């Protein structure tokens, strides 16, 4: 579980996150949604520790970011997995090497153990037949699956996904969303997904945080978001005229 307590983040006198207070639950797919420029990515980067917050605190399973020294921060960061928007796979490595990479870099286990652990997660994302392929030889959906396998190979407590289905067709996007949700349940991970895709929101949004202009405007789940009478949430969820008519 990650608790966010009253955090504030600004860049060059421009406040990007303002008084954000929320909880991201363990074993659930937590979604951060909102329009472009609402502060989603900055919040995700603060949670990842890539940005320091100006004030407030982030509590990772009872451990406050405020009280951590650099070694403890490194320790927490090694319990995190991240799926980047563009997958961020290493171009010169094949699928197996990409998934094995965190094990090579951060563990002292022997080669056979590394391979079998990497293979376990590659099989979990259904890419057993593509282990020798380079990222350039994979489709967008396959690249995302490799990125997911790499993110969970270290058995992280926290999984972060930055728009995991951007650039994918709706059918593949749903497959990726469902895979993330299954993994979240299977390994009991605190998963936080940054998205503005309404399909994802409806499909896997167990805990949704809606941001607008740096403020948390609303929080609920995928059933509540469709019925919400909050003006900003309504404008976001029913953004097209067609959807508005269908709702009415």
């Amino acid at each position: 579980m990650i608790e966010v307590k009253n955090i504030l983040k600004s860049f060059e006198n421009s406040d990007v996150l303002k008084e954000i207070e929320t909880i991201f639950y363990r074993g659930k797919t937590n979604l951060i949604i909102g329009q472009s420029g609402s502060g989603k990515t900055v919040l995700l980067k603060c949670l990842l520790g890539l940005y320091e917050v100006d004030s407030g605190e982030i509590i990772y399973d009872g451990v406050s970011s405020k009280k951590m020294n650099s070694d403890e921060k490194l320790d927490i960061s090694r319990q995190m997995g991240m799926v980047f928007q563009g997958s961020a796979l290493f171009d010169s490595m094949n699928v197996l090497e990409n998934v094995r990479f965190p094990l090579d870099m951060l563990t002292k286990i022997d080669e056979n153990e590394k391979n079998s652990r990497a293979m376990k997660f590659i099989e979990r994302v259904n890419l057993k037949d593509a282990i020798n392929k380079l990222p350039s030889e994979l489709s967008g959906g396959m690249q995302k699956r490799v990125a997911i396998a790499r993110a969970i190979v270290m058995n992280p407590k926290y999984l972060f996904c930055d728009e995991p289905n951007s650039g994918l067709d709706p059918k593949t996007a749903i497959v990726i969303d469902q895979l993330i949700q299954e993994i979240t349940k299977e390994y009991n991970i605190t998963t936080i997904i940054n998205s503005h895709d309404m399909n994802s929101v409806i499909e896997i949004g167990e805990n949704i945080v809606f941001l607008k202009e740096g403020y948390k405007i609303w929080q609920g789940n995928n059933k509540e978001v469709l019925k919400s009478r909050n003006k900003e949430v309504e404008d976001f969820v029913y953004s097209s005229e067609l959807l508005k008519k269908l709702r009415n």
Partner: protein
Amino acid sequence: MNFLHDIGKYFLMIKISFSKSCKREILYKQIFKEINDLVLDSIQIVSILSFFIGGVVSIQMALSLENPLLSKTLIGYATRESVILEFAPTFISIIMAGKVGSYITSSIGTMRVTEQIDALEVMGINSLNYLVFPKIIAMLLYPFVITISMFLGIVGGLLAISLTGVPSEAYIQGIQMDFESYHVTYSYIKTLVFSFVLATVPSFHGYYMKGGALDVGKASTQSFYWTSIIIIILNYIITQLLLA
């Protein structure tokens, strides 16, 4: 102010790249990969350039020394001095700023654009140590490339001068004349300093670049511009300190 800020950032980058080291076996693998990409892959272009420029230098020397009162051995002597003192260490380093520098900036810059560097950081890996440190170590073999350049430059001069009718014995006598081993030492000191610049300045431009694919190209151009300028300025400073 931006300029001073960037200088500070450059030195911090070097400090971080030497700290929080990755696992040894990973670094060894990276260093051997970089030796291949940065040093061994440069030998061919350096050899061709050195051979022909050495030839051109000797022909130009022969042309300038047409006076019958001047000994033909001076052609070999002047070619040797030009190649060892300036052409091999400095001129080749500027060419390397284009070849090796662009490669370093574009490869690191592409990793930045495609979030691969962020991925390393999120995993808790010191990305500067993983990406920049092996390049610095690999470039310690750069004097080997310059040695080849010196040798081929002088050999190129010999072959070119033979074709112009000047006796090759005079050229060979010239390259042995008044040999100062300190000049070679000076040349290798310069080369080592340039090798550090060639590894770090392009890495800096790639690592801290912002933007998209187009900006990778811009960063490579900037990297070549600054690496060349720094090499030329350091060349002057080192020469002033060691030879003046």
